[in-house]
């Protein structure tokens, strides 16, 4: 059984792989169903890559959370990049500031139970997601 929290850097491409592996281990240890593990790991991969590519690198914080009988994993991806001016637009499918497909934010939101985007121009971006068992 795992409990607690931690953080790992997401600064370079290889860190995205490490973030995926870390989240997988947490999800397995918490006993998430395979489909929920897959969704959470995929969302983490999108958000970690965003932090590296658009945010100039940052960190992934993880914590295990509880609500009544349910347990979950909460992940926060924080960077000190340029931030997002138009959050509604950034959450639209197909909107992209770079060369991607524009599915990172909007797509990962669909894969988790809770999603929070906190960003302002010049103040970096923080995306917090939660998946419950």
């Amino acid at each position, binding site marked *: 059984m795992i409990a607690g929290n931690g953080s790992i850097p997401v600064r370079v*491409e*290889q860190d*995205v*792989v490490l973030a*995926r*592996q870390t989240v*997988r281990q947490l999800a397995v240890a918490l006993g998430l169903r*395979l*489909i929920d*593990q*897959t*969704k959470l*790991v*995929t969302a983490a*991969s*999108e958000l970690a*890559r965003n932090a590296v590519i658009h945010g100039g690198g940052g960190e992934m914080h993880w914590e295990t959370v509880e609500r009544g009988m349910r347990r979950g994993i909460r992940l926060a991806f924080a960077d000190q990049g340029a931030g997002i001016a138009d959050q509604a637009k950034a959450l639209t*499918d197909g909107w992209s500031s770079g060369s*991607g*497909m524009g*599915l*990172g934010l*909007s*797509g*990962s939101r*669909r*894969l988790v139970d809770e999603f929070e985007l906190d960003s302002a121009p010049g103040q970096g971006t923080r995306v917090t997601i939660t998946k419950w068992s």
Partner: protein
Amino acid sequence: MDRIPILQMGDLLLVTIQVDMHDQLALTLQDDLTEKIQRSGARGVLIDISALDIVDSFIGRMISTISSLARIMDATTVLVGMQPAVAITLVELGLDLRGVRTALNVERGMRLLQQPDASP
């Protein structure tokens, strides 16, 4: 540098992705495959992703790009072995891999590529 091996079997190229790919590795595979199609004159490319436990938008885009590039170079790509959890997640993420031919497993993928009218 890391590379995903590309095997040649007659006029087919076979790629089995067995590692958790970082983005550069995926891009290298894309380049390597294009070059190999050109050099070998392969008519078919079979990509086995049964060992992959996630496909995110980056890998999804790589698969679509490989399929398009191969088509332009007169080769057909078939993606095989996607795990059910991966397929569900991919569709929810918003990727439907339009234009990419798929088959349940390697055997069926091979059969698809060996049909005389395999090109889409």
